[in-house]
């Protein structure tokens, strides 16, 4: 009897799945303060990605295929001043992501996924070359635990210090 009960118990343990929350994590820009002027960003440090209502992607005013965005973003953030068309250094590099209002959400996530993927790729490469670990999550796991009371404090994460995620979810265009 106890054997059967054990089998049942193990069966239920195995078939029960607890769904975990997965998604693209983002930090929204804080509410605009009218009294403070927004900081000036040099044009070369800003990569403007615009998605029109029909799903076409314009990077710096030129059409680009979805699969090329990642490469373009990586080039922008890892440029480090060598090409005058791209950013001066990774700390100053900003990616601006705008869409028109009637764009379906699915396309929005597709493009956002590519941009986030570009950052993840850069972090992985940097962690591998500088710290000799397999990828960025491995490096992150080796860090001492953050104080949970200060969520904004990234601790001693040198990879994120080098390539901070500066993605501006810009104010949408009216209409």
């Amino acid at each position, binding site marked *: *009897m106890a054997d059967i009960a*054990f089998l049942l118990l193990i069966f239920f343990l195995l078939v029960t799945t607890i769904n975990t*929350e997965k998604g*693209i994590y*983002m930090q929204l820009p804080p*509410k605009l303060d009218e009294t403070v002027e927004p900081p000036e960003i040099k044009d070369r440090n800003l990569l403007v990605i615009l998605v029109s209502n029909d799903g076409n992607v314009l990077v710096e005013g030129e059409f680009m295929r979805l699969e090329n965005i990642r490469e373009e973003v990586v080039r922008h953030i890892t440029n480090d001043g060598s090409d005058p068309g791209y950013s001066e250094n990774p700390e100053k590099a900003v990616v601006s992501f705008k869409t028109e209002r009637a764009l379906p959400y699915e396309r929005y996530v*597709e493009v956002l996924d590519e941009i986030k993927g570009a950052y*993840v790729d850069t972090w992985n490469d940097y962690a591998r070359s500088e710290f000799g670990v397999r990828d960025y999550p491995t490096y992150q796991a080796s860090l001492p635990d953050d104080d949970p009371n200060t969520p904004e404090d990234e601790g001693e994460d040198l990879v994120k210090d080098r390539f901070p995620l500066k993605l501006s979810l810009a104010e*949408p265009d009216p209409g």
Partner: protein
Amino acid sequence: MSAHFKKKSKAKQEIPTASLPDIIFMLLIFFMVTTVLRETELLVITRLPQASAVEKIDQKRLIQYIYVGEDKESGEDAVQINDALINDLPDIRDAMYRRLLDEPRTIVSLNVDRDIETGMLYDVQQELREADALRVNYSTASEAPQ
């Protein structure tokens, strides 16, 4: 003489415990099968998009869920926070503001249907910014949608 009449009981006085594990197991399984984990009832249709550069959120306690999709009854676009549909978008601001007072580390998980226009999403995000709820998660599906 009196000893002659004393009844001698042959039954043991202990309760037999051999089947106790079985009984406990039965109870355990009974409760496992009948327990329903509390789940939010979705009042809107959300078919999540897919993405690859995703992160897992471990601290489930911190998450507040916002669902944006077609209302199952009326068929119009609607927004649901946790359990309830909301009538006006500014209600999001109030709800999140109150929640943030309790738990400043709150993460808002946005479960948005694939076909919702981003304009709607921006309106929701604008409300979140007003409430200073800046940590958001665009929830995505891990498997192919049915």
